[in-house]
């Protein structure tokens, strides 16, 4: 177990390093260095940068140095000082802008993941055990539909329905009164009231996918000899189902976190833009459109870190549950 954990940890660290390089690459991709666009923007606004602050910035980001020095300056700032760089669009440090939104993204993704599981698991089990029943067909069809509707389209459609027929605006995560209020119980309550629709929209795709996974896994297990053995030992059907095949089918189900979480985070970005949620999505989009690269790069980095760590957790969970993984 310890060896397995260590190996996973090493892999994760490697992946994190690779992720940071990719995020840095994204920062570097736009043509010209960002100082040019920065001073151009400054000039647009009527001001101009004096050469002193220009050289200071150049020094800080090592702009006249090779890329790996720039990368080191950037990543060491993040690792040792929590300094993600400067947002030129907002004239603020990235870390000031990012954490609130990132926290809400984690919250939204986490709740959605839990809901996805709670819904997909029983439906998947039912669908497998009562294969070819009419409810199985309904579930299967809805599953296909859930996979085919992009989450932003679902969000748009729901927003239209709510505003047209109920006169409700369902965008955002807070009522106007609470947007800028400090955190309080009332604000949390308000958040909960607003959260269910984004969670519904975001969980549709994952739920549809996971029902299919659970159904297929369980159908594979249901006819395995060990189930027959348990039956031959006089176990009742319900007891047998949950003790053996469901338990075994749960393992591949857990490992789906590895791809459900990245998908979820991706979907959350687009959906947040549509529903104007104060999560990472809209800010990332505006940062990318304005070529505010340190802000955008930091978001890409942190969202990737989120999924990598989520995958690590699912791997460890799997090892805890499945002896074959643990001892391998």
């Amino acid at each position, binding site marked *: 177990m310890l060896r397995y954990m260590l190996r996973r940890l090493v892999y994760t660290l490697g992946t994190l390093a690779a992720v940071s390089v990719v995020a840095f690459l994204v920062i570097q991709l736009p043509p010209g260095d960002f100082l040019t666009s920065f001073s151009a923007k400054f000039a647009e606004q009527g001001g101009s940068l004096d050469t002193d602050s220009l050289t200071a910035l150049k020094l800080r980001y090592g702009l006249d140095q090779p890329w790996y020095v720039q990368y080191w300056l950037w990543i060491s700032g993040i690792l040792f000082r929590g300094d993600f760089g400067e947002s030129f669009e907002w004239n603020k440090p990235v870390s000031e802008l990012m954490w609130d939104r990132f926290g809400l993204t984690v919250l939204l993704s986490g709740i959605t993941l839990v809901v996805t599981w709670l819904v997909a698991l029983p439906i998947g089990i039912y669908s497998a055990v009562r294969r070819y029943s009419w409810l199985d067909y309904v579930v299967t069809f809805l599953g296909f539909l859930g996979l085919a509707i992009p989450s932003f389209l679902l969000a748009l459609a729901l927003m239209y329905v709510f505003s047209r027929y109920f006169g409700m605006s369902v965008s955002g995560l807070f009522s106007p009164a609470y947007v800028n209020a400090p955190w309080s119980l009332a604000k949390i309550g308000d958040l909960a009231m607003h959260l269910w629709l984004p969670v519904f929209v975001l969980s549709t795709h994952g739920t549809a996918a996971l029902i299919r996974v659970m159904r297929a896994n369980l159908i594979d297990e249901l*006819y*395995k*000899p*060990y189930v*027959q*053995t*348990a*039956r*031959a*030992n*006089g*176990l*009742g*059907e319900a007891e047998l189902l949950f003790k*053996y095949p469901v*338990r*075994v089918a749960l*393992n591949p189900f857990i490992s789906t976190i590895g791809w459900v979480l990245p998908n979820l985070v991706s979907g959350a970005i687009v959906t947040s833009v549509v529903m104007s949620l104060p999560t990472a999505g809209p800010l990332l989009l505006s940062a990318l459109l304005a070529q505010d690269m340190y802000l955008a790069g930091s978001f890409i980095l942190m969202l990737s870190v989120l999924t990598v760590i989520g995958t690590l957790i699912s791997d460890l969970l799997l090892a805890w*549950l*499945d*002896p*074959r993984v643990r*001892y391998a």
Partner: protein
Amino acid sequence: MRPIPMPEPMPAHGTAAVAPSPLVAVADLKVQIGTDDGLVRAVDGVTFDVPRGRTLCIVGESGSGKSVTGRALMNLLPPSGRIAAGSILYSGRDGEAVDVTKLDPRGRQIRSLRGKEISLISQEPMAALSPVHTIGQQLVPVIRRHLGLSKKAAQARAVEMLGRVGIPRPAERLGNYPFEFSGGMRQRVCIALALSCRPRLLIADEPTTALDVTTQANIIDLLQELQREDGLSILFITHDLGVVAEIADDVAVMYLGKIVERGTVEQIFADPRHPYTRALLKSVPRLGAGRGTRLAAIRGMVPSPFDRPKGCDFHPRCDAALKGICNSVDPGTVTIGPRRDVRCVLAREPAAIGGASHG
């Protein structure tokens, strides 16, 4: 090792005397299995007994219905299968006979038989145990359920059983997972699981097929030893005639869902009456056979169950088939002695077949 107390005195192994009432009496059993292409008559009217304390071998090629027959004894068919006709009378400990076919396959009554009175070990020891539970987690609940023991006593019983089937350091290995055992050891665990509640009938469905030859021999020795100690009846399903010769007291040969020949092991090997039995025996390699002799194979293939030949099922592949008879008339079961049946029109004429099948 202390043998567990026997439920009742058993006739000594190998004697000709047969207990008056068999443990299980199967009469005209028919099992149908639904497939995408239609209903298959997997078992098509078989009649046989499983005597107390003896071993009956069911021999046949794959698809002959031998496994389905075995499972039917526990009323444990796949969801698409059902017992269409016939009876399976199991004489319980209290001497009262239960017709297994009449029980609800998911009901309490049959479940109290399964694992306690009738046990099953199957072909794939690799897959017959849950991969994510320890041996103890799989053994102990079964013992507790059927014998009503406390957790501690059940654990002790599990350790005792693992020891009896020859697993070294049984108390430690209770906490191991199946994948930590070799194939042969895993089959021993399966046997321990099957025998842990002192069943009176063990259905062994090709228990040695997936194992190498040495392990095979060990497992068979173990089964015979346990049978001697517990007075167990064994229904042994196999396609391997070598195994049959070693373990069987009685033999039933199956072909396309029917028993084509039935008799004691001596009768089957020394005086086979059905051409199919003869052909099977000839297809086994023998020590001492001349270098130039070719191993005989039965020509043709097992016909599709949807496309049964008219008349005798075996006639298209039979060397002794009689034109005008075998391809038009179903031979029916011919009883040529006590517990000695042959499904062949030539059953009473050993010479006729003997001559025809030479070469």
